């Protein structure tokens, strides 16, 4: 999980004064290797770096071909910076030098297999969002919140989002919720057409998902499963029953099965739904109040 990791250091590939440039092919391989392990890279060349680093938001490591004379470099706070001469290093060895500079601190990385947190979460198109808060009401995982400054919707806890689940984007009436790593538009961020906005199949009625018939059916099935469980004493049978019930939901909203399997009990869903609805209503009231005050003044 991303919360348990620290930001990786940024790598500065220094090809300025006192450093010989890399061979272009080697540069390509080194850049790809660093990026695919989760490191951002700045290339500094004659004429300047790509941006102003006045605030130096991240710790960094410098790589260059210094001909054996490694410069002594300190950051703005006077701390020594890791500088490595990669003149005689292979790409793998240069990457290893960067890895060493992390001193074993955990970082999220693309090449960590099952330990990787895939950055999957909703992104709001603020030009389209009307702050209706339907998504906030819909989400059971506290992904959404409200900005205390202006009572607008915001993505508060992106790491809470269920990977590969785009369900909340389908309840947005303005097609304002994107998942940049989704496979198709407009959910992936592609331009929104009028047809998208009006396409009923893009939207799933919240009441159908979380209230009304489906919730009643979940509760009913849950009770049946509990009853059967008590008779058969089989957890597997109860789980299978729950899965059967949720299949319909998965088909309706393209929600991954594992997400539905991980849903809490119907009672907990109901409690969370009520809490989310309360937050959404409070946010709408606050916005209306603020708007009213602005109009009066």
């Amino acid at each position, binding site marked *: 999980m991303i919360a348990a990791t620290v930001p990786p250091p*940024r790598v500065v590939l220094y090809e300025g004064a006192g450093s010989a440039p890399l*061979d272009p092919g080697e540069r*390509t391989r080194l850049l790809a290797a660093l990026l695919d392990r989760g490191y951002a890279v700045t*290339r500094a*060349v*004659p004429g300047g770096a790509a941006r*102003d*680093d006045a605030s130096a938001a*991240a710790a960094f490591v410098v790589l260059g071909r210094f001909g054996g004379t490694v410069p002594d470099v300190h950051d703005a706070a006077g701390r020594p910076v890791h500088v490595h001469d990669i003149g005689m290093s292979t790409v793998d060895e240069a990457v290893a030098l960067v890895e060493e500079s992390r001193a074993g601190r955990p970082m999220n990385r693309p090449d960590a297999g099952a330990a990787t947190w895939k950055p999957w979460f909703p992104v*709001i198109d603020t030009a389209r969002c009307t702050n209706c808060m339907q998504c906030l009401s819909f989400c059971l995982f506290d992904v959404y919140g409200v900005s205390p400054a202006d009572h607008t919707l915001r993505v508060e806890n992106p790491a809470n989002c269920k990977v590969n689940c785009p369900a909340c984007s389908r309840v947005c009436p303005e097609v304002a919720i994107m998942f940049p790593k989704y496979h198709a538009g407009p959910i992936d961020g592609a331009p929104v057409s009028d047809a998208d906005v009006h396409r009923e199949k893009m939207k799933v009625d919240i009441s159908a998902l979380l209230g009304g018939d489906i919730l009643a059916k979940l509760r009913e099935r849950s009770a049946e499963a509990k009853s059967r469980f008590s008779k058969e004493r089989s957890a597997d049978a109860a789980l299978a029953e729950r899965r059967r019930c949720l299949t319909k939901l998965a088909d309706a909203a393209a929600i991954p099965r594992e997400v539905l399997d991980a849903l809490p009990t119907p009672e907990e869903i109901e409690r969370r739904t009520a809490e989310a609805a309360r937050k959404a209503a409070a946010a709408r009231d606050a916005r209306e109040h603020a708007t009213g005050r602005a109009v009066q003044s």
Partner: protein
Amino acid sequence: MSETAGSTPRVLYCRCAYAQVVPGDVKDAVLDGLARSSAAFEMVPDLCEMAARRDGQLADIARAVDPARPLHIVACWPRAVRGLFHLADARLPDAGVEILNMRAESAADLLARVGLDVESGSGPTTPQVPA
């Protein structure tokens, strides 16, 4: 450290390393084109991951936008890229930013739009190590 003004385009490249939604051949060819140019650039493994962490580097990049020297962000759909910066509390200005989409354009077109000379970089320079 202050930036040296010049005619060289400013480039931010996103590798989209945590997913396979950007065609691999396109992002590899763009990376190679940038690496063979003489330009300074920023490359990040994944803008989504950085936005989720609200990485301060995104705010640095947004603050450094200068309409006189446009920033080319080579990533994915512009709507998504702007949303990611916004999520990271790093609002990109409208002027001075061009977002190029590796999901929809060819590598050759993208590199042409960035306007880089694709050669090996060399020559003397002033040290530009981040402050």
